[in-house]
Each structure stands twice: as C-alpha cells, then as structure tokens.
C-alpha cells in the first residue's frame, strides 16, 4: 500500500507536471520505491530525457553545453525538411533515417596553415564524443559538415581536397599528434548555392562507429581552391575561407521500439527490409535487387 500510494502520487504529479517543492517532489521517478525505479531504464529515450532533464533543470542547475549556433541553424533547416510544423514526420519515401545526430568537435588543434602556393592548407585535429549514440542506432550515413564563414565571390566554383586520418591516443597521451596521410575526399561545388559543405565520410567512419567507438579523433587536412585550374584563364587564387572546424552529422536508423520506423508505415507501402536508397533522401538508385523485388511484389 505504501509503495502503491507513492506510485499513485508519482502518477498524479507525473514528469509532465510542473514540480514544486524539494528535489524529491521534482522528479516523480525519485518518489518510486527502489524496486520500481529500476524500471526507469525501460523508459523510452524521449521520456528519459524529459524526466532526466526535468530533474536536472529543476533540482540542480547542471551546466549545459550550448550547441554551436551554426549547427543549430542547420538542424532547424533539417527539421523543416523532415517534419511539418506540428511535428508530423513527412512521408518522404526515400528518407530512411529516423534519427540524425550532430556533434560539434570538443577539441581541435589548429596546425599553422602551410601555404603550398596552390591554396591554403587548413588542417585541424578534431575529437568527437559519440556517447549519445545508442547501441540500437545503426549508422546509415556520416557527413563532415563545413559552413563557410567568409564572403566568397558568388559566381565562383570551388574545388576542395580533404584528407582524413584517424588518430589513436599517443602512447605519451599526446592529444594532438602530427598529421599522417590517409584516403582523400575531393569536392567541387558552386559557392553561391552552398552555405554548407557536406562531405560524405560514411565509408571512412563506418568501421569506427560500427564498433561503437565512443571517441573519434580525426585529423582533417583541407585544401580549397577558388576557380577551376583547368579552364579558368584567371590565375587560381587560394581560397582564404575561414573554414570553421566541421561538425559531424550521423544519419541513423534507431531500431528501438519507441522510434518511428518509416518503411513499416503505410506511406511507404513497403514491408520487410528497407529499400536500398540513399538514407538522406538524395536521389538514390534503387539497386536491381530492389527493382526485381518490387516487380515481384507488383
């Protein structure tokens, strides 16, 4: 009876209610008898966040790391593309992710840019902490997200070459070891169309994220040139873009029960495994197997 009474009081106040009084009143979960509190771990992530955050923000002002404003602007734009104003996910057939996480680097060391005469070399060491990625969230795509923080002549085309290297913690515990060479990613785009530069690094990071690596330490070496050296008659001028250290964007498929599974929803008209399209909704190419399967279904 005692625990039931307490349980009902927890039910009435609920983590949604505006709490008053001492910390124990603030977080109804703390009112639960010890035996029941274990069930807290079963709460779906959103409710955990709500009750956790509710408790933290009321009971103790734990310092909250504020996200980078550019990153916030990007995620608000992604939200508008993925959901309506009321928060209903848009039935977009080819966008398979149900979770997108954006991490800003918590550590970077600027290498003094070495001018190679052909363009600025901009290199940083970045450390991303991926503690928030759960075991049930499977990686679909990962992207390094650059935002240009300088006014570039609008009509220019930009050609970038990026080298990534995973850095292990040095034996001497050295945090920013020197750069070693690694697969290169090249990009070509028009400045006027892009405030953001998304570099697909899925193949590079997949092995690390698949092994649930908590900290990913990468050294990024970025060389950008304005104009197209082959065709432009004008001398190629190095891009003095103040490249802001990139954020890491992970498109994930959360396989937990509380997450919304798109390909099972009626809008997709698909059952079973998800179609093999690009997870972010880019113009993917359904593979022949997918075509054959859909023909059989028809």
């Amino acid at each position, binding site marked *: 009876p005692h625990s039931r009474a307490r349980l009902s009081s927890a039910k009435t106040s609920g983590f*949604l209610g*505006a709490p008053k009084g001492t910390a124990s009143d603030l977080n109804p979960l703390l009112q639960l008898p010890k035996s029941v509190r274990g069930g807290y771990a079963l709460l*779906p*992530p*959103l409710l955990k*966040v*709500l009750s*956790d*955050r*509710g408790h*933290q*923000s009321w009971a103790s002002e*734990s310092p*909250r*790391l*504020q*996200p980078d404003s550019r*990153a*916030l602007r990007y*995620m*608000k734009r*992604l*939200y508008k593309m*993925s*959901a309506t*104003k*009321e*928060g*209903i*996910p848009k039935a977009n057939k080819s966008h398979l992710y*149900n*979770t*997108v*996480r*954006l*991490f*800003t680097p918590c550590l970077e060391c600027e290498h003094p840019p070495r001018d190679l005469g052909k363009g600025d070399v901009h290199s940083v060491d970045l450390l991303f*902490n991926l*503690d*928030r990625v759960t075991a049930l969230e499977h990686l679909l795509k990962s992207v390094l997200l650059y935002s240009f923080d300088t006014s570039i002549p609008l009509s220019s085309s930009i050609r970038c070459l990026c080298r990534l290297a995973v850095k292990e913690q040095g034996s001497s515990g050295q945090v920013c070891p020197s750069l070693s060479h690694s697969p290169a990613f090249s990009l070509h785009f028009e400045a006027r169309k892009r405030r953001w530069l998304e570099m697909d690094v899925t193949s590079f990071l997949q092995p690390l994220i698949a092994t649930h690596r908590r900290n990913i330490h990468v050294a990024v070496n970025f060389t950008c040139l304005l104009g197209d050296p082959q065709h432009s008659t004008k001398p190629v001028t190095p891009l003095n873009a103040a490249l802001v250290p990139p954020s890491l964007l992970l498109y994930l498929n*959360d396989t937990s*029960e*509380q*997450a*919304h*599974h*798109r390909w099972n*929803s009626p809008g997709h008209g698909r059952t079973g495994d998800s179609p093999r399209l690009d997870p972010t909704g880019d113009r993917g190419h359904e593979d022949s197997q997918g075509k054959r399967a859909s023909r059989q279904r028809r």
Partner: protein
Amino acid sequence: DEHPKAAPSATPPYNLSQYFKQFVFPQNECELHSFRLSFSQLKWDKWIIAPHRYSPQYCKGDCPRVVGHRYGSPVHTMVQNIIYEKLDPSVPKPSCVPAEYSPLSVLTIEPDGSIVYKEYEDMIATKCTCR
C-alpha cells in the same frame, strides 16, 4: 383506413421519447478530443527546439453497450459489459482508449551540447476504441 377503429389512446408523449432514448447514442460517447500543449508551458523549450506546440489528443466518453459495429471492438468488450451489468458491477465497464497513433518528430539539445533529430512512434492519438 376505411374502418376507423376506436381512436387509439394517445400515448402520453413522454413514453415515446423514453422509448426512443434507448436507441439514441449517448451524448458524451467515447471519442477523440483535442489537446494542444506548448513546451514553453512546461519550461522545456530550452532544449526541445522543435516542434513548439504538440497535440497529443486523448480519448474520453462513455462506451455504448453494443460497441462492436462502431469501434471495431472485439466481442470481449461486449462480454465485459454484460458481466458488469448482470453479474458483477465490480468488474469495470469497457474504457474509452486510443486505438491508433501517429509519430512525432522532435529536435532536442542533449546534455553534452550535441543536437538530435528523432522520430518517435505513438506520440499522437488518432483514433479511439472501447476495450
């Protein structure tokens, strides 16, 4: 009618309305009700970035006695109603509860400062039933 019979005694009006009352659906029958909340009311708008407003909806109302045809209720619901009416009133009447939901997309800031977009299942009631 060529052979007028004795004028039937006029049934007092209240019997007729009484008679039809048993067929009228209950006034506050089980149905979906709207409820809109904003995360700023809960002071959660510091870390729930979007949506600003959320309409979870809810189900409320009495379950009519013959529920099969209107709510897609299983036969068990009628059995439970009969138990409540004829055998044991301590057995609860069928309740008006959500039968279907729709998902909700949420944009939140995590304690470590990272930002997450997540689509959660079963966050908005879209249909009610009696069970």
